[in-house]
C-alpha cells in the first residue's frame, strides 16, 4: 500500500507501523472522574471497546522508517483505498487535546 504522507508525499506502507483505531487519541484523563470505578470503566471502554468496521476506518500509523510522524489514515478496510491522511498531532489538537 501507499500512504500519502501529508509532508512527504506517497510512501510505501512498509515504512510504517500500524497501531489501530484512531479513537485511541481520545484518551480519558484518569484523574478526571468522580470515583475510581468510573475512571476504571471509562479507561476500560477506551482501551477495549473499539469498532472493527468493514469499510471506512480511521487508523493510527507511525512512520517508523521515515519522519516518525504519527498519522491518522482513513482507509477502506475492504478495498484498501486510502481516503485521507492527516498528522495525528493536528487531529489530536482538533479533538481538544493539549498537554
Amino acid at each position, binding site marked *: 500500500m501507499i500512504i500519502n504522507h501529508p*509532508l*512527504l*508525499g506517497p510512501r510505501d506502507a*512498509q515504512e510504517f507501523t500500524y497501531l489501530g483505531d484512531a479513537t485511541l487519541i481520545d484518551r480519558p484523563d484518569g484523574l478526571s472522574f468522580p470515583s475510581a470505578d468510573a475512571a476504571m470503566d471509562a479507561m476500560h471502554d477506551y482501551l477495549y471497546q473499539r469498532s472493527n468496521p468493514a469499510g471506512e476506518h480511521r487508523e493510527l500509523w507511525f512512520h517508523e*522508517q*521515515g*519522519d*516518525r*510522524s504519527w498519522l491518522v489514515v482513513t482507509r477502506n478496510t475492504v478495498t484498501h483505498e486510502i481516503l485521507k491522511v492527516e498528522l495525528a*498531532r493536528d487531529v489530536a489538537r482538533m479533538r481538544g487535546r493539549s498537554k
Partner: protein
Amino acid sequence: MADLSLKPITPLGNDLPVRISIGPVTISEVVDTALASLAQRMGQDITAAAKGAGIPLPPAGRWEQGATCAAFWLSPEMWMIEAPFASHEDIVAHLKPVFGEAASITEQTDAWARFDVTGASLPRLFELLCNYDIARHGAGSASRTMMEHLGCYVVIRAADHISVLGPRSSAQSLFHALETAAHSVF
C-alpha cells in the same frame, strides 16, 4: 604508567576511513562531519536565529548547504545539522549559543556511519538498495529510508554524490550492502 589517552576509530573500526571503487562508483567512509539534531521547541520560532547564523532549515524532504553548516529535514520542526568536524567537534557547544532555550539540540556525530557514493548511474545502484526514488527527487533531497533492514538517511548532494547515513553499530553491514549492490549492478 601506560598512556590512557583515547584515540578515535572510524565506524568501520579502522584508524583511517575506507574508500573503494567499483565500476563507475566510489564508496567512501566519511568521518569529517559533526552532526547534531536541532528541534524547535514548542511555541518558538528559530527561523531568524538560524538565518543569522547561516544555518539552513530546509523544508520536509530536503537538504541544503549553508556557508559553514548544512542541514537536512528529519521530522516536523526537527533538522540534522552538518558541520565540519575539525572546527565543530563539540557541535552542540557551537549551536547552543545560537538558539538558547528556543531549541533542543542533541549531538548525533557518532550515532551514524556515513558513506558517500559518488559517480555516474547512482539511481541504478540505489534502486537495488531502497525504495527512495533518487531520479525523481534529485539533488537537494534527503529522506529516511530502509536499506537491507537498516533505517538510513539518504542525502542527495548532487546527481553524482549521495550520502548514506546508517546506524554506526551496523556500519559493516551497511558497507557490505553498498559494496554487494555495486558489484551486482556494475
